């Protein structure tokens, strides 16, 4: 389903803390609901471009959660890490403020072909602000009874942004989620790939699909491990992006064998074999 043509003003319904990140909710009265992995271009309606003339361009942000909005339309939850002037301004949007959105944009994660009870199913691997699209994907898999496991990596007790997206209404971590933390305060002490490796080594791994989003180094490690174990992997990438709809050609991601993909229209979800290497140079 196409995105509505053009940007539209939406009301900010909520803004809450999430382990050091912010979750900003906007109400979209017009657009279709997003699929897991899709993103929107976001800008604040006011205060976009401060004293130093930035932020100027809208920011591409994937959807962490969505549900029907009271009064019509959909509520969209965005997970924001204030890494620059754009994400900082978006992260301080207050209830009742307005934001420009364009979307939903880009492709989405594909369901695993084998979803029988004995199959390896889906393995979701996330870290950093990249846990956002996996939270929506996990919700979809739960709704459709797709067997899945979720592996999340966090640095330490003070950096658990987005973790609550994987907790039930009681606040407890959902039973399908396992954690790795670098300080070992909870879960496995180590990296999320330490959780992934034994799964990839399992006899049934090749019937499954890995879905990953996170920092470039993590994505590259996941991509490489999956290639070594011949397990299918879908990676949700990030890239500097001015427009989100194929106009600017900024979000170029090198293809194996030469040439480039436009991440906004060819992604943001790419199969592991569509990517040469996940690098900070374009992520």
């Amino acid at each position, binding site marked *: 389903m196409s995105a509505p043509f*053009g940007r539209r003003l939406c009301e900010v319904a909520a803004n809450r803390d999430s382990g050091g990140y912010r979750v900003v909710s906007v109400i979209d009265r017009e657009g279709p609901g997003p699929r897991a992995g899709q993103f929107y271009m976001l800008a604040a309606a006011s205060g976009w471009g401060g004293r130093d003339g930035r932020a100027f361009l809208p920011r591409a942000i994937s959807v962490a959660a969505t549900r029907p909005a009271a009064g019509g339309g959909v509520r969209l939850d965005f997970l924001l890490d204030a890494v620059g002037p754009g994400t900082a301004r978006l992260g301080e949007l207050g209830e009742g403020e307005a934001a420009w959105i364009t979307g939903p944009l880009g492709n989405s994660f594909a369901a695993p072909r084998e979803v029988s009870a004995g199959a390896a199913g889906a393995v979701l691997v996330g870290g950093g602000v990249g846990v956002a699209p996996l939270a929506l994907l996990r919700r979809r898999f739960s709704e459709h009874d797709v067997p899945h496991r979720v592996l999340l990596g966090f640095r330490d007790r003070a950096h658990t942004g987005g973790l609550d997206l994987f907790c039930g209404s009681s606040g407890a971590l959902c039973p399908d989620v396992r954690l790795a933390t670098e300080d070992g305060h909870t879960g496995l002490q180590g990296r999320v790939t330490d959780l992934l490796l034994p799964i990839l080594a399992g006899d049934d791994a090749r019937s499954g699909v890995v879905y990953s989003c996170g920092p470039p180094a993590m994505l590259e490690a996941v991509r490489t491990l999956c290639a070594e174990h011949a397990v299918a992997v879908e990676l949700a990438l990030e890239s500097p992006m001015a427009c989100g709809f194929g106009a600017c050609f900024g979000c170029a991601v090198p293809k194996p064998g030469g040439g480039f993909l436009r991440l906004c229209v060819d992604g943001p979800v790419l199969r592991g074999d569509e990517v040469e290497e996940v690098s900070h140079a374009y992520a």
Partner: protein
Amino acid sequence: MPELCGIELAHPVLNASGTYDAIAARAVFGDALLDDFPFGAFVSKTITPEPRAGNAPRRIWETPSGMINSIGLPNKGLEGFLAEDLPRLAELPVPLIVSIMATTREDFARCVGRVAARAEVAAIELNVSCPNVHSGLIVGEDPSETEALLDALRPLTEKPLIVKLTPNVAAPAAVAGGAERGGADAVSLINTLKGTATDPATGEPALGNGYGGLSGPAVRPVALEQVRSVRAAVDLPIVGMGGISTGADAAEFLALGAVVVAVGTESFRDPRAGARVAAELESSLRPERISEAALDLD
């Protein structure tokens, strides 16, 4: 009704070449793009004789009130464009202007000849911000090179030839003079200003290509002055652009002598910016002033 070189336009706001991929936008937004097409004419991304992949990332960098790009003209090449893209661009509900770049006069002539022969094409824009490999000079930086290129291309078609001027010269009006002497029908300006930035995280150049072109509201005063100086020097119609994001911005370009305007970077922020600027322009100017301005420039 505004017109450019005899091409009637529903409104006077075009897109700047390379800032709107109408084929990709139609895939994203569906046929609503055609029902509500934002531009009065559509200018294609620049095509070159052979396919180009474009520059290595990183390709864009946000700056105060603007951005630097080093995209590197990725395109399917002349034959790929004619076979795959042109039929789809012909479905757009507005006149089509095709932007062409080449590094020899022979290649330029081949591209112009092949493109101009297609009925779907209303006009050709010549992107001269490139070297002539024989002389080593950037064509658009040198009035004689520009005139000589037009001398070579002018006999090939009766369709309008629009020369896209680079702002990275001391006297763009002199280059516009070369275009006029060579028989160009119009000039469009400005292209992006050369610029660069370092990545504060590394201290290295932020862009994969080392430098790029600055666009957005940051360049608007430069663009306005170049339009003014070119208007004073030549009688050719001017397509004015450079940081236009509102109707009031567009009105400044028209007041200084542009006959139509183009929107580039603003479309990245607002996919319907062209239509919005046109609507704001119409409501912000008194109708009689628009027609007077248009008459002055005929």
